[in-house]
């Protein structure tokens, strides 16, 4: 999908999309930006380890899909097998389009708005450096579909989680969902973004999630990526937090072929807190890249970040976590860790924690480890009669589960933990224990 092809597709896509007057200038400007920026190349420091050539050279169709009834039926079959929580009805998106007739759950204090209001909000949020920071966000803006604005009313605390599930059925498509979440003062909400798809469907998902958080708002978001094995996935999630706002983000990557997650959090006012954790499994030619940036722009802000990678045979992992403590952000408290388990000599992980501190009187800690299983733990378990394969399987699972415990939705936590377990070596010998 060369730039030329994208420009052509853009012209024809506009007729396929019901393009509103509000979105048109934003889309045009974004297409123009992407035309100038192009795909991020490996010459950019933040793209050094991830080559997008399989995408830029891929023969994808960027025109948003219009799923037919067979596709939708197929999507539901996939969904029945992989619901994260059987007690919650998710909002369903098939190949980047909201399922016709899908309704957001009716929860007091929660409004889910469609394209028109979403584009107004995109216009409001427009920060011109966004595309520079993440060129793929420009492409998303140009071609965005599934535009959804999730808005909580001021002071509303929504107990029930909102699940969005994105299902890829058709092969060769580019889907570019645009999700906005608006959290006014004292609001609270949990969102789950779940990606699933057919193993045979090779396409590209390019997601942008933009969040605004007013004072004391509290957002929890879990992004569970279980794409089919041939799917490409790139995404940007960004949030800016006002005074005493709290964001908790959990990333789980199990599927897909080439994955690049960008998370950019700005702790813009005092007391803002970011908790960010992730677990990824990569093997058999999969490439998973987590790029995170947390800006401590104000005093007394806190961040806690922990990523764990399990890299198997021919798996490739990248972690780059930048924490910037800006001038004036006294009393910043930042902790970051990236721990990685290499299960095979034929796996590779590049982990790079980056700490930039421009002020005094801060508390920052970061650490990165790449290793094998702990021999003392292994011996302890074997000394109880547990065979080596089972002990290794359980310890590998434990390594991931130690972070997955932070998922506060019990059904989702159990379901994700069991999917992680299912991907690990010798599952048959120990999976029954869980």
């Amino acid at each position: 999908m060369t730039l030329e092809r994208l420009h052509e597709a853009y012209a024809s896509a506009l007729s396929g999309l019901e393009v509103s007057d509000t979105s048109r200038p934003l889309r045009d400007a974004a297409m123009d930006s992407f035309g100038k920026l192009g795909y991020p190349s490996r010459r950019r420091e933040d793209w050094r380890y991830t080559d997008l050539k399989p995408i830029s050279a891929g023969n994808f169709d960027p025109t948003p899909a219009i799923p037919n009834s067979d596709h939708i039926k197929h999507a539901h079959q996939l969904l029945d097998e992989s619901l994260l929580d059987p007690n919650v009805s998710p909002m369903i998106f098939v190949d980047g389009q909201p399922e016709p007739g899908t309704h957001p759950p009716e929860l007091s204090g929660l409004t889910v708005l469609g394209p028109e209001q979403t584009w107004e909000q995109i216009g409001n949020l427009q920060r011109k450096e966004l595309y520079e920071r993440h060129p793929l966000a420009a492409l998303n803006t140009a071609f965005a579909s599934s535009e959804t604005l999730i808005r909580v009313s001021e002071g509303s605390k929504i107990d029930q989680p909102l699940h969005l599930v994105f299902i890829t059925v058709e092969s060769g498509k580019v889907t570019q969902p645009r999700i906005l979440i608006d959290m006014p003062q004292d609001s609270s909400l949990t969102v789950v973004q779940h990606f699933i798809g057919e193993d045979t469907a090779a396409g590209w998902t390019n997601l942008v999630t933009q969040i605004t958080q007013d004072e004391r708002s509290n957002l929890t978001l879990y992004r569970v990526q279980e794409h089919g094995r041939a799917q490409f996935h790139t995404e940007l999630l960004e949030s800016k937090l006002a005074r005493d706002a709290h964001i908790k983000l959990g990333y789980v990557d199990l599927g897909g072929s080439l994955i690049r997650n960008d998370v950019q959090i700005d702790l813009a006012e005092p007391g803002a807190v970011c908790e960010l954790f992730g677990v990824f499994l990569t093997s058999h030619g999969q490439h998973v890249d987590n790029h995170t940036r947390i800006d401590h722009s104000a005093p007394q802000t806190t961040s806690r970040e922990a990523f764990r990678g399990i890299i198997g045979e021919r798996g490739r992992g990248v972690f780059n976590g930048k924490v910037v403590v800006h001038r004036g952000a006294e009393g910043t408290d930042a902790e970051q860790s990236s721990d990685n388990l290499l299960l095979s000599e034929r796996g590779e992980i590049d982990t790079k924690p980056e700490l930039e501190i421009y002020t005094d009187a801060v508390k920052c800690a970061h650490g990165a480890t790449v290793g094998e299983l702990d021999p003392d733990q292994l011996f302890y378990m074997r000394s109880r009669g547990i065979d080596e394969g089972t002990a290794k399987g359980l310890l590998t699972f434990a390594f991931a589960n130690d972070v997955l415990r932070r998922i506060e939705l019990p059904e989702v936590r159990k379901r994700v933990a069991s999917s992680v377990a299912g991907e690990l070596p010798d599952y048959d010998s120990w999976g029954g224990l869980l």
Partner: protein
Amino acid sequence: MKNETLLCIDDLHARVEDRMILNGLNLEVPAGEVHAIMGPNASGKSTLAQVLAGHDNYEVTSGSIRFLGKDLLSLSPEERAREGLFLAFQYPVEIPGVNNAYLLKAALNAHRTAKGIPEVDAFEFMRLIKDKMELMEMSTDFLNRSVNQGFSGGEKKRNEILQMLMLEPRLAVLDETDSGLDVDALKVVATGINSLRDPERATILVTHYERLLELVVPDRVHVLAEGTILKSGNHELARTLDKRGYDWVRDESASA
């Protein structure tokens, strides 16, 4: 009639890296007995325990160990455990992310499979463990906690004994299970150990202190120093060691 010999160690030499720790150790433990192994620091007590369990940091350079008539040294750690050997660790390992329930169920089922009996299901497992947890005064939330993570020293030791009670070994080797315990915890641990005493089983208590031996009365007491058993006796020997220390044993052995 002499009971069946469970463990027979003959002229055992073992080292860690280039340092010889055990220098010709002999020990025989018949079924039905409790043996205490006492000795000064760095005498080789913990090395003996680790060699018995099969830790690969320790290299046996010569000598043999027979357990239930089998060549113990040819077995993997898990095979030893399934044959009925249990080591209570001096420093039980923390395993974040592995629930106690997972560990215990995996261990129990590995033992059962090796014996050709059906695995336990969740219900049967709970039934088996409930009384033992009460005996060890452990709260019910314990099973869902990670193995030894955030446990106090006393909790870790009680957990070792709980595992032992679940696995019902023929030979339990308890490596300083009494160290770091207050009087009440020591009593709980001793109750656990005594509950498994029977004519079929044996216990080796590796300890510094005589106080555990007042609660779990040993049949034999051995003094281990410089990698070998210098002296053996009955419970009275332990009391003497408690009063007089170890130097007299060394002197006696040097002049002999």
